[in-house]
């Protein structure tokens, strides 16, 4: 009866269209996030995450519409992140039909935002996203990991493990830990970093960055992840959600 380890496909959305190539067959429109979310739902995704990478405010308005249309036909939880800066941004996405909202950079600049969102909507709506990497020359942090911004290009010198723990204290309902070192390598999740954060936070922890094979997902679950998130392996059709779950099930990990 243990809670299943969630498998979460993530879609990057720019101005209402899915970014990056997609390998699915039998799709009317491979760039339509609604259709893709529906497809992932059919494949057994336990949640779907949209990451809004739109640079313009017009793109963000479009995103609200995408969320609304997705909520009309996808009956698993939907998380939406990207560009969320205020409680009003959160309100707009929740009203459109998002179940959870991902917050990243804005909370680094103003950590009180976490408490404000938790107070107004409950902590269960807030997924705090941490883009973290191993510290490089010049910087030191106690854990050896630091928080980055700008897609991992800029270090902040903030200890990633401490930040995750503080965010959970402030009211984050879960932590999405994205390894900027592993991201895009398909060489596996950063299990050491995952373990370091796991030992400090008691809210659910989502592993992200580096997934390449079904075994990588199994390893992340064993390292203490409550959920595993991936984008490209699912986008490009390298793996299906079903294949990942089969491997996890075979390895004795609880899945839906």
């Amino acid at each position, binding site marked *: *009866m243990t809670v*299943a380890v969630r498998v979460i496909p993530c879609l990057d959305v720019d101005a209402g269209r899915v970014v990056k190539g997609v390998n699915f067959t039998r799709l009317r429109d491979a760039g339509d996030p609604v259709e893709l979310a529906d497809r992932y*739902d059919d494949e057994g995704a336990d949640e779907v995450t949209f990451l809004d990478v739109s640079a313009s405010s017009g793109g963000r308005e479009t995103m609200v519409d995408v969320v609304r249309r997705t909520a009309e036909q996808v*009956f*698993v939880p939907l998380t939406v992140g990207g560009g969320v800066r205020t409680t009003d941004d959160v309100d707009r996405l929740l*009203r459109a039909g998002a179940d959870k909202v991902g917050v990243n950079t804005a909370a680094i600049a103003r950590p009180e935002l976490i408490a404000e969102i938790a107070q107004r909507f409950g902590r*269960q709506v807030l997924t705090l996203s941490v883009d973290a990497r191993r510290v490089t020359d010049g910087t030191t942090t106690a854990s050896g990991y630091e928080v980055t911004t700008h897609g991992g290009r800029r270090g902040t010198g903030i200890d990633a493990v401490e930040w995750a723990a503080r965010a959970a204290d402030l009211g984050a*309902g879960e932590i999405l830990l994205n390894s900027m070192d592993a991201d895009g390598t398909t060489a596996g999740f950063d299990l050491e970093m995952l373990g370091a954060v796991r030992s400090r936070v008691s809210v659910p922890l989502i592993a992200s960055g580096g997934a390449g094979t079904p075994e990588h997902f199994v390893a992340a679950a064993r390292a203490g992840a409550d959920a595993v998130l991936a984008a490209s392996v699912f986008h490009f059709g390298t793996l299906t959600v079903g294949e990942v779950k089969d491997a996890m099930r075979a390895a004795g990990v609880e899945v839906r």
Partner: protein
Amino acid sequence: GRPRVVVLDYGFGNVRSAVRALERVGADVELTADRHAAIESDGLVVPGVGAFAACMEGLKAVRGDQVVDRRLAGGRPVLGICVGMQVMFDEGVEHDVRADGLGEWRGIVDRLQAPVVPHMGWSGVEAAEGSVLFRGVEHERFYFVHSYAAQSFTQGHDAAADPRFTPPRVTWSTHGPEGSAARFVAAVEDGPLSATQFHPEKSGDAGATLLENWVRSL
């Protein structure tokens, strides 16, 4: 015709999903806080997310407490979801703040004791014997997201004594490591009043079947 269902719109909960999920299983759904519509519909859904005390305040602001009482007094079906279930109990305790619930069931909603909280994700249930809601989906998983729960359920004294009285059917779930998991009420079916701690509207096909079972009973 299609059963008419009102989803109570009092500002708490992802009501859009609930409306769509109910429409999908054959209900004619209206999202409203109108008291008369809520009292007169074939079924009433009370959603709810966030804090217990805030939900109770919101509910009272639209006189939802009276609506629920009126319906139950007349044997008219009500379905509470998530915090919409929790408020059916006597009281809730969150962050040491105590708040009165609707008091339909005896007991307290308080914090789950488990290494990882909130309990967020898909869990199985021990479906109550004779359950109508779980017919056909007894062994499925459902989507939960909560930090608080009713961890006991008190059956009324007259249950055993009075053969006309059907005792509430209680469905349980657990959260936490095997052996030391917290056990909590996942669903209750008590005459016209049903409720689930999980979100059937977010529980894929299993959740749709559960909602369909409820809609068909209206």
